[in-house]
C-alpha cells in the first residue's frame, strides 16, 4: 500500500493468469505489490521459471490448474479462489499497473457513493518502445476490477468477455500492455492459437446465420463491438479489411513504423482466422488423402 493511502482503506486483491511468463512476471508482480497485499498467481503448469519467480515475492500465493479453455480458467480464478478482499483486480502477466491506476483502484472501491459491481479501464498498447495509440484502436475499455461474486466469464473459445451482475464504473487511469515483451516468436505462436479458437467460434456463428443488424447500433460499445465481430465472420477478405480499418480509419499511420507493423501483424492474424474457418468448413485433409491414394495407385493401365 502506498503511504498516500490512509491505513483504513482496503486495497483490492489481484489475480494473474500465467503460462511461461518468466520474462514478464517479476515486473508485473512488483507493480501489483505496490498497492495490494493479496496477490494470486493462477498458473497453467508453466515449464519455465514463472512459478519460482512468483513464489519469491511476498504476499503472493501460487496455484496451478491445467488450462482447458480460457473462460473456465478465468472463472476458476474468480470463483474457486478465496481472496482476502472484496474486490479483485484482474491482470495479465504482460500488463503493468502504474501508480496513478493503483491509486485510483483503491479510491474507487473505498468510495461509498460508488455501488458498482465492476469497473472498466483503458490501456496503452506498447510496441517497439512506443504507445501505438491509433493502430491498437485506443480507447478500448476492458473490465479489470471486479467483485468476484458478481462477475462470470461468457462461454466462448477465446477473447472472453465478463458478464456483470450490476452496474459498471469507469476508471480514468490506464494500464500498460506490453504484448511483445516475450518476443515475437511468442506473439506469433499465441496468435496461431487464438486464431484457431476464433475460427472455431466463427464457424459456430456462421452456422447460426447472420445476427440482427440492430445490434450494430447498440448504445453499449461492448455489445456493438461484439456484434461487429460476429458480422465479420461473414466477410471475405478479413485481413485486408482489418488492415484498412486499423491503418486508415483508426489512423494507425500516425504511429509511424511501429503502427504499420502492428496493423500488418493484426491483419495477418485475421487472415489466419479466415483461412482456418475455410479449413474447418471444407475438409482439406480428406481431399488430400484421396488424391494421394490415387497418385500412389500407379499409372492407369
Amino acid at each position, binding site marked *: 500500500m502506498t503511504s498516500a493511502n490512509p491505513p483504513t482503506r482496503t486495497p483490492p486483491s489481484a489475480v494473474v493468469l500465467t503460462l511461461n511468463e518468466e520474462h514478464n512476471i517479476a515486473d508485473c508482480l512488483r507493480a501489483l505489490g505496490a498497492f495490494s497485499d493479496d496477490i494470486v498467481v493462477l498458473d497453467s503448469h508453466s515449464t519455465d521459471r514463472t512459478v519460482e519467480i512468483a513464489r519469491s515475492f511476498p504476499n503472493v500465493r501460487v496455484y496451478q490448474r491445467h488450462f482447458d479453455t480460457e473462460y473456465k480458467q478465468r472463472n476458476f480464478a474468480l470463483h474457486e479462489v478465496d481472496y482476502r478482499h472484496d474486490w479483485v483486480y484482474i491482470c495479465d502477466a504482460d500488463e503493468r499497473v502504474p501508480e496513478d491506476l493503483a491509486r485510483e483502484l483503491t479510491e474507487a472501491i473505498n468510495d461509498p457513493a460508488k455501488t458498482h459491481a465492476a469497473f472498466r479501464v483503458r490501456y496503452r498498447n506498447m510496441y517497439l518502445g512506443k504507445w501505438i495509440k491509433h493502430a491498437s484502436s485506443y480507447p478500448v475499455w476492458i473490465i479489470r476490477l471486479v467483485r468476484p461474486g458478481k462477475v462470470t466469464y461468457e462461454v466462448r473459445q477465446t477473447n472472453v468477455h465478463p458478464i456483470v451482475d450490476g452496474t459498471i464504473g469507469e476508471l480514468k487511469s490506464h494500464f500498460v500492455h506490453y504484448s511483445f515483451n516475450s518476443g515475437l516468436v511468442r506473439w506469433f*505462436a499465441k496468435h496461431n492459437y487464438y486464431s484457431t479458437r476464433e475460427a472455431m467460434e466463427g464457424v459456430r456463428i456462421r452456422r447460426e446465420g447472420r445476427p440482427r443488424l440492430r445490434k450494430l447500433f447498440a448504445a453499449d460499445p461492448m455489445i456493438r463491438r461484439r456484434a461487429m465481430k460476429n458480422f465479420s465472420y461473414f466477410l471475405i477478405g478479413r485481413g485486408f479489411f482489418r488492415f484498412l480499418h486499423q491503418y486508415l480509419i483508426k489512423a494507425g499511420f500516425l504511429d509511424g513504423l511501429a503502427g504499420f507493423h502492428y496493423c500488418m501483424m493484426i491483419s495477418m492474424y485475421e487472415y489466419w482466422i479466415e483461412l482456418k474457418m475455410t479449413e474447418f468448413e471444407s475438409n482439406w485433409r480428406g481431399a488430400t488423402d484421396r488424391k*494421394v491414394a490415387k497418385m500412389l495407385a500407379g*499409372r492407369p493401365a
Partner: protein
Amino acid sequence: MSAPRVDIMIPTLNEADHIAQTIANARELGDVYVLDSLSTDGTQQIARDAGAAAVVERPFTNYSDQKNWGIDNLPFTGDWIFILDADERITPELRDEIRQKLARAPRANGYYVNRVVLFMGKPVRHGGLYPSWNLRLFRRGTARYEERTVHEHMVCNGATDYLHHEMLHIRRESLSRFLEKHIRYADLESDEWLKWRLGQSTMGSPGSLFKDQLAARQWIRRNIWPRLPGRPLWRFMYMFFFRFGFMDGLPGWQLARLMACYEYMIGLLYKEKLQRRKESSRSLK
C-alpha cells in the same frame, strides 16, 4: 550380379500420424531406417511395427547435422541411400525408374528427385514450388549436407543426374501446425540472416559463388534479399504472378499469401534480433 539395393533413411520427430503410411510406401523400394529425434508421440514403436529395419534415436541438433549423423551412423547395408521425409511418398513411377537406372550400373553418384507439393487436396505445380529438385538418392559415402541450420543443401562427390519421375510432398497437417512449423523456420531463418549480416556463415568465398546457378541464387539470398524493402509483397508477386501461382487456383492463392506471411515473420524476427543485439552491446559498454 544382383540388383543394387537402396536403403531409405527417414528422419522423424512426432510423426505418429502418418509414419506407418510413409514406411509402407518406402518399403516398396528398399529397407527403411528411421532416425528419430526423441519423439514423444510413439513414432518409434509405430515405425518398428510398420517394418522399419532399424529405429535409431538421437536428440535433434539441427537438420543438416542430424541427417549427416544418420548418413554416417545408421547400420545401412545397401549400396545407395534415399532420404525421405515423413510427409513424402515415392510414386510407383519413380520407384520403377530408380530400379531401372541403378540396375544399369550408372556413372552418377547422386540423383536429383523432383517433388510435387499437395496442398488443400491439390498438386501445386506453379508458384516457384515446382519443379523442386533435391539430391535425395546417392551412392553410400559420396554425399553429405552442407552445414546450415535450415533449408540445408546436399553436396555430392562425383557426377549427378536427374530422375524423370516425381515424389509427393503431402501437406496434410492442420493449418495451425503448418503455421507452427513456419514460425519455427522463420525463427531459424532469421538467425541465419543475422549470421550473414555479422559474417559468421560457413559459406565459401565470394569468388567461387558464381560458378553455378544455385550458388548465384544463394549469394542473392544472402546479400541482396535481406536488404530489400517490401519482401513479403515481392514474395507474393513472385509466386502468384511471375511464377504463375494463379494457375493452381485456390491452393496457389493461399500458398502465396502464406509464404508472404512467412517472409514477413522472418523480416520482423530479424529486425527484433538486430535490435536486441544493439541493446545488449550498448548495455555492455
